[in-house]
């Protein structure tokens, strides 16, 4: 009886060790990156809607570009 108990205890201990080794610290996060938990992005001023004058500027540039690429 005593012998059987010891045998079970040893087998249980061995199984526990195997499990522990299987899940042990392969990728231990003992020193997390310094920025963990902090914000990482800056909020910049929101873009505005293009005005009619802005669209005119863009159109002029586009027309000039179209003329350039059709001429060379």
């Amino acid at each position, binding site marked *: 009886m005593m012998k059987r108990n010891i045998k079970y205890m040893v087998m249980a201990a061995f199984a526990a060790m195997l499990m522990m080794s299987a899940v*042990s610290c392969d990728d231990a996060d003992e020193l997390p990156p310094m920025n963990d938990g902090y914000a990482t992005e800056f909020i910049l001023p929101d873009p505005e809607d293009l005005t009619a004058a802005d669209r005119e500027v863009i159109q002029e540039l586009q027309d000039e570009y179209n003329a350039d690429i059709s001429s060379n």
Partner: protein
Amino acid sequence: MKEIKVMKNIGKYAVLAGLVLAAVSCTDYLDIKPYGKTIPQTPEEYSALLQTRLYEIEEGEETIIGDVGSVADLECYADDLESKLTQYPTGNYVPLYVGDDLSDKQVLYAHLYEVIRDCNIVLDGLAEDTSEEASDVKGLAYALRGICYYNLLRDFCEPWEGNASGKLGVPLVTVFDMEARTIRSSFSETVERVADDLQSAIDCNIRNEDYLFDSDVMLGYLARVHFWAGNYSQAASCASQVLERHPLLGGDAYKSMMEETGEGTGNILMKGGTRSTGSGDSQAISYLQCKPVSKQFINLFAEGEQDIRYGISLGKKRTFAKRPMACLRSAEMQCILMESQYHQGLETEALASLNELRRHRITGVTDYTMETLPPVDPDDNVKVDARGQALTPLIYAILCERRKELFLEGDRWYELKRNGRPEMWTHRQGRKYTTLEFMYTFPLPIADVILTDGLVQNPGYDNVK
């Protein structure tokens, strides 16, 4: 007897379990400061810390010298390419304007300090070693540290603009200490740190050609930092010394130097990504072509194809022909020289230096005189010079010549920053995105500012998420 047998079995199991544990357990558990285990001892071992950096420079990296990709990004922030005409869908793969990349600059900051950390380890470890080999390795460490602090100064500090007083520099770390929490130095102290490191590199007189950073390269960087900081007398002196040893090239020699895609030839003193495999570079270049060359830039070539740079720089249909590159070469020294002369009040000498550069580039060119200098273009984004003064025809001609010469070399963004930080806008999906003055100075990492008492963030970066 049976008890003894059982005990023996327990022993066997225990040994077996121990072996299994030893085989799979973590080998680098808390291995942060492996004192007495992997700390280098000899100059060769210390040099290994820096050899990786040299390898990266040759393969192409975005931290120390730069490469095609990092230059392409800088050109997307600037105005030689017309951001308002960005073509899609390719335009989705490049930054529309600098605002797209500002948060990512925290990584650049961290990478620069990683190189500085390695340099500090080397300089600490070899402090007492007076051998020739140790001198070379120390010279390399000083060179890399000086260049990293120069990059930090340009990217993460406000520009000089005629007065360094009250302007912040970056935290100066010169010894290896993981626990250090250093606050920012002044602008002038950072400039002094860069100049000291570069001078120390020169004094070490690096003999090993594999270390890339010889005295001429360091002199070129000294010229750059003094120029950036408004120390025009020193900038002109350093630039002149480089030019004496590496005179300007013209004609076919210049063309072949500029069109060489591998090693730096001619008077290219330093070039990043010389051993780049090419596929990443080709992709970056093809993406960049989604932004046509700006008409205003093209119009700078008043002499057309008589200017050798016209054919080298520009392709058909408003594309660019020049390959973007990160390098240090003699023509930049000539640009530094002529502008430094101008800011010292030596206008005759500045004009002569400008004409000298133009004679090397433009066939049959007639020298400018003070009377024949072209007028300042009121539509140019640059409205003031580096001292905040209104542009004169001479300084404007100098800036334009530099713009043509250093096209697609990542220079224009820093020229805009150095000369007034003008606001510019572009658009995407009906919305207008503006490069505001504060965006020319990149933000320090959020975590650093929180963790370090007294570390001051740059203006404009108070809102985070």
